[in-house]
């Protein structure tokens, strides 16, 4: 399809970019620490709560909906990870019928789960 080779070497620049991007971000932080003043006060380092002294522990129990959404996201994210590589096989004439059937079954299972969750009220927010 494309004469450009798909070798691991194609990804070598990405490795360099990872290093450079981390360096850029890190250097800025170090610069700001070096250039900025440092005058520590107890009141300054307290958490901001609209001018009131902070009370109680911050990390406490949180509503379960957020947890449900995160779990639901993982299911769909896995589906998406399968879908992307699969999407390119759909243009292969020998494979496309089989791949449609396979992905059809997989998507059906995910959709049934989604409908169940919707009916159970996991998506309602109040």
């Amino acid at each position, binding site marked *: 399809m494309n004469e450009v080779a798909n070798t691991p070497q*194609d990804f070598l620049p990405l490795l360099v970019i990872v290093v450079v991007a981390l360096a850029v*971000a890190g250097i800025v*932080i170090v610069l700001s620490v070096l250039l900025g003043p440092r005058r520590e006060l107890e009141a300054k*380092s307290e958490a901001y709560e*609209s001018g009131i002294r902070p009370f109680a522990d911050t990390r406490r129990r949180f509503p379960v909906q957020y947890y449900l959404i995160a779990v*639901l996201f993982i299911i769909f994210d896995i589906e998406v990870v399968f879908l992307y590589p699969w999407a390119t096989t*759909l243009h292969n004439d020998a494979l496309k019928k089989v791949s449609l059937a396979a992905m059809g079954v997989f998507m059906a299972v995910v959709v049934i789960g989604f409908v169940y969750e919707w009916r159970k009220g996991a998506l309602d927010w*109040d």
Partner: protein
Amino acid sequence: MAEWYQVLMAALVGAGVPEWIATAIALLVGVTAIGLVAPLIALILVWLLRKVISRIQDRIGPNRVGPFGLLQTIADIVKLLSKEGINPSRADFMAYNLAPILSVFGVLLLFAVVPVTRGLIGVDINVGVLYIVALGSIGIMAALMAGWGSNNKYALLSGFRVVAQLLSYEIPLVLSMLAVVLYAGTMRFGELAEQQGNFLGLGWYVFLMPGAALIFFVCALAESEQTPFDLLEAESELIAGFHIEYSGMRFAMFFLAQFLSGFVFAWVGAAMFLGGWQGPGVDLPGIGGFLAAGYMMIKTFAIYLLMIWVRGTFPRLRVDQMMSFCWKILVPLTVGLISWQMVVQVLDLPIPVIAVLVLVGNLLVMGIGLYAVGRAIRQEGFRTKRAFTPDSLIGTVQPVAE
């Protein structure tokens, strides 16, 4: 590998440089260009946002530092660099300090694969779209770490909303991009642009898949934390959201990451739906390449300006509205769209018929989506009200009647 890389390599090897040194030089040049161009673009983006929003709000905006206030952002950065970085007591040291670095890191990585013109793509890998999808999550992690690590209740609330909003909207975003990948059969940004070159360079996927493009735009707004989806940092509710405890340069890095992620989404949208660098006259010898790069930038900035326009004019959504819009409208619609498209494409039909069927599916998705939103608005009993009636003089400067 992109063409610019091979040209540079050939020139260096031709000049008698050993091959591995030539490789290293070419890599460093390309990577440094990406690492420097991205923050420079951000300077323009911040200025553009402030200027446009000011005009929308009937103000002038920055106009003191440099011509048209163009250097205002540089002045701001110098100021922020000279500010103290506060370490809140009882904050999680690692999470708190790593979060701003990670957020910039994640966005800079995205700039590696977006195309400028034919042969001028940082790294034209064969899984370009998947790469964008995968690394888009790093920013979410950073926001979550900031929200959790700050030991601040507002920041923690914002962290919850990060989970709710950014995670949720990533699904329809990714699925709408999948619609394009399904049709094109490639995840390489270079090839995606090449395939949109029919009809004098105007065979853009936005005409074929308006539904997917619209969903992509809405989700891009949500993912880049723009109004109407700016619940993460809703000033009137959460003060500043997850970066409330950050000061100085560390705050600026969240700011930078937010601007750049909006811009990258505009760029990806332009590459996937607006034909990338395609346009009339890109195949002309000589000026064609410059025309192509110009088209790419014009399209990207057009989408970005549209985002700013939405940001300047829309009110904020409520959390429950935002969540039901994603899970009860966008996700079923995109899943339906993908299913329809995969069935259509497997049937042995001539290509024009497939195109028409895909278009029909997209129009159907748009119709159902708009109907559902309209019904929800009616149920909520919203009424649009004009902010300024012609006879209201409150808050405006009126010319004195002669």
